[in-house]
Every structure is written in C-alpha cells, then in structure tokens.
C-alpha cells in the first residue's frame, strides 16, 4: 500500500484540481448535447427508411450515442497538457528526479485527469438524456438502462478498462511530445484515428460486415465500441468477455510499449527552458 501512495496522491490531486473547471465542463456538455441530438436524429432517419435489418437496433444505437457523448473525455484526445508544459519549460527535469517511477507517476496523473473530466460530464449527460428526455416525452430518444443485470455487471467490469487503456495511449502521446518537443501536431494526427476506430463516430458494427473482425481486435475498439455495446446488450456472453479480454490485453501491450519507448527517449532527453 505504501508503495502505491505517490501514485494515488498524483491521481487524487489531479482529480480534485480538474473538478474546479465547472464552466468548461458546462460548455462541453452543451456541445455534446448538440452533437448527440444531431446523431440521434440522423440514426432515426436511417432506421426509419431501412429495408435491411441492421446488426444493432435503433434504441441500442441511441443509448450508445449518449454513452459515447457522456464519456467522451475518457478517450485519448491528446497528450496531458501538464506534460506538454513541463516539456516546454524544462520542469520535466523535476519529474525525472523524483524517487518514484516516472511512467507510473505520469500514468496516474493522466488517469486522474481524464476521469475527473469525465465524471461531471457523464452525470450531466445522464440527467439530460436519461432523465429529462423521458420526462419531456421523448423516451424513444433517451439513454436507456442496460437490458439485464448481467449486462450491467459486464459493463461495470469493462468501463474501468477504458481508463486503463486510454491512459496507456495518452502516455504514448506524452512520450512523443517529449521526443519531438511539440504537442499540437501530435495531437491533431491521432484524434481522427481515435474518432473512427474507437466507434465514437458510429458503432463499429455499422461498418460493412467484412471489416468487423479487424475492427473488433484493434486497440481503439476497447475505448468506446466494446464497453458501450456491452451496456446496450448488443455484445453479450462470450463475445463480451472476449471484448473485455482484448481491453486488458491491449492495456498491457501499450503500457509495455510505452515503458520501453520512454526509457529510450529519456536517455537522450534535451531539457528546454532556463
């Protein structure tokens, strides 16, 4: 327990700090309602006129859309801004001198950063899409509860893996920033990949059938598609467990990659600032 303390402290302090930014959370919430609303209307139009049966139902895709909007902050959209700043002003040197594992410390901070941003937004989104919409008579368009206790439990297993996987990806971005000393270009290149391959844009099952296996096993699926299809009951039983196993496996692989790369980059670290 004593060993984990610096990392839990890093997580907790970042978590509490980020909770202060309520105005930003509210602006983000409004944007997500707009985006979610447009998507729901578009899906409704496609399903209304559909002559073929889709591999996912309209109510599943609507709940999926609200979940994806609610937990948007859990995706690896960019490097940790604190790390980018530390690289620019040279304080990355202090982090190197601390008597803790540097990868672990940054990882814990990244995890705290994204969970603290996600929780208030998810709560607001639930109030809007899960409570206000049904009360307004738009139950068809609302965030529905999981279809069974089993799916809810599977989701409870899968959701924490979103954080572990996403933090591992943020760490790759952090290390890339340390290596090339600039954050904007790196961030703008990864996010389109995340949007498509995580299933944030549309559930991956909507893509043509021949792509499904490849889309399921790639690492980004564990960020949105796997957990939220489990929640909606679109991914059940053995397939759901396979999805969770993939989330865990990719976390381990990407953490290992990140650690190896960080060790290399830090050996020839050029510190800026003065």
């Amino acid at each position, binding site marked *: 327990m004593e060993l984990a303390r610096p990392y839990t402290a890093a997580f907790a302090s970042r978590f509490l700090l980020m909770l202060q930014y309520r105005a*930003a959370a509210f*602006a983000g919430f*409004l*944007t997500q309602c*707009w*985006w979610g*609303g*447009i998507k729901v*209307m*578009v899906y409704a*139009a*496609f*399903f*209304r*006129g*559909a*002559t*073929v049966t*889709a591999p996912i139902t309209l109510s599943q895709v609507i709940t999926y859309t609200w979940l994806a909007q609610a937990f948007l902050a859990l995706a690896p959209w960019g490097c940790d801004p604190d790390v980018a700043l530390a690289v620019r002003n040279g304080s990355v040197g202090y982090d190197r001198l601390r008597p803790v594992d540097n990868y672990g410390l940054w990882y814990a901070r990244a995890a705290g950063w994204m969970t603290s941003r996600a929780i208030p937004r998810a709560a607001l989104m639930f109030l809007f899409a899960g409570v206000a919409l049904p009360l307004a008579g738009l139950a068809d368009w609302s965030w529905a509860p999981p279809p069974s206790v089993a799916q809810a439990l599977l989701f409870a297993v899968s959701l924490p893996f979103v954080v572990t996987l996403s933090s591992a990806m943020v760490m790759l971005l952090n290390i890339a920033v340390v290596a090339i000393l*600039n954050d*904007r*270009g*790196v*961030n*703008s*290149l990864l*996010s*389109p*990949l995340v*949007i*498509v391959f995580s299933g944030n*844009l*549309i559930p991956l099952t*909507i*893509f*043509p059938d021949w792509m499904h296996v490849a889309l399921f096993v790639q690492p980004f699926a564990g960020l949105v598609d796997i957990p939220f299809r489990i929640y909606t009951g679109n991914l059940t039983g053995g397939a759901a467990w396979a999805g969770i196993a993939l989330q865990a496996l990719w976390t381990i692989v990407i953490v290992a990659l990140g650690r190896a790369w960080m060790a290399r980059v830090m050996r020839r670290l050029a510190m800026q600032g003065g």
Partner: protein
Amino acid sequence: MNAAALLRRYCAASLRAQMQYPVNAMLLATGQFWATVVDIAAIWALFHRFGAVDGWRFGDVAMFFGLVSISFSIADFFTRGFDVLGTEFIKTGAFDRILLRPRTATLQLIGHDFRLSRAGRFLQGVAVTAIATSSLHFQWDAASLALATWTIAGGVALFFGLMVFQGALAFWTTESLEAMNLLTYGGVQAAQFPLSIYERWFRSFLIFVVPIGCVAYFPVLAILGKPDPLGAPDWLLPLTPLAGFAFLGVSFIAWRAGVSKYTSTGS
C-alpha cells in the same frame, strides 16, 4: 496603402511566420484534412449499411457536405481575429491599440492571423465535392457552377457573420465564448445532412434563426435540380443564399454596438 494591399501584406506576414515551422504547419493541415475525412467515412458506412434515406443517396449528402466545408474553410481563414478577440484582445487590453490605428478594426482583425492549416479542410471540401460529382454522375455546366459559387459566397458570408457575432459577444463576456462553436462547427455538422430528415423545430432553427439551411440545403437542391420535399417553391431555392448576407449585416450591427460599448480592460 489601400485596404487590399494592406491585407495582402498581412497575409504574407502570417504565412511567412507559419512557414518558419514547416513540419508543424504540415502536421496541422494534415490533421485538419483527416479530421474531416473521417466524417465522410461515417456517412459512407451508414449509406452502405442502410441504403438510401428518404430518397437521399450518398452522393447528395456528399454534395451538401463538400460545399459547406468549402464555405466554412474560406470564412475560417479570414476570421481568426474575431475568433480569438475575447481572449487575445479584450481580456489583455490589446484592443486599445487596434482602435488607435488609422484603419478599421474589422480590417485589422481579418488580417490578424491567416492560418495555413485551413487549407486541409478546404481541400477536403473540394475532394468530397468531386466524390459527390462522380457518385451522382453529375454534369457541371455554366449555370450549376455559377450557382455553386453563389452558394459558397452565401456560406462564407454566413460563417463570417457567425464569427463577427462571436466577436461582438466578447465585448460583453470578455472571454471568447466557446459555446459559439456549437453554431459554427456544429452548424457544419448539421448542414451535411438534408434538412428534411430533421425534426421540425430543429429544421426551423437552421432556416430562420441561423440560416445554415439557406446556404447549403436549399441552393444545393437547385444545383441538383431536385424539388424540395419540404415544399419550398423552386424559384426560391437559388435565392436563399441571400440569407447569409443578411445574417452578416445583422452581425455587423451587433459588432458596432459592441465596439461602442467597449471599455478597456488593460493596464
């Protein structure tokens, strides 16, 4: 020096500054390009899965999307100054300096920062329009090209107006209002689908409040030679981009009110 020459000089200076970091500029433009390519991937997947929606084909939607992307990228290229007005000029007091110079604030803000990365979205808009053309086997002629240019002009005016309006609001809020991104980026998002698939209240908002439908949906129907399923008369369709210019006019009235209310915040 006249206004056009001054703008050219502003533009050359911005571009020169960005080319000092060529890798960064390229990465940003590539990022912008990909970010908008993924949108069309989703639309393609939906049509591939479900077939046509209310009689709209993939090519129709690509045409809406391509033209609106072109309009937005052009407007965005010229309006960075209005976008960051709150954060970079009003909060810091730097707007005082702008008012002291012997040129209009509008001209100086247009010249503030021309961002090369916007080329990514522009190229994507052109590419999507080309995809739409080949998907629909559409034959461009002089009339449809003129109409497309007019549509884009209306779109540029509308998005320009939205940015000026955002700038005007900053005189009251001091910060740049991020919620305005809803109307700009969110508007582009909404305009890429035909208005007829939306609910009535949302449609009315996109026609009568922020007339994005008038610079995308209606004129593109005229370009494609389709009647409006919502029942707007055919002669009205090509005239609707005027709404973009009207919106720009209203935004400048708000802008004047904002400037006259300005009190310096700097030290």
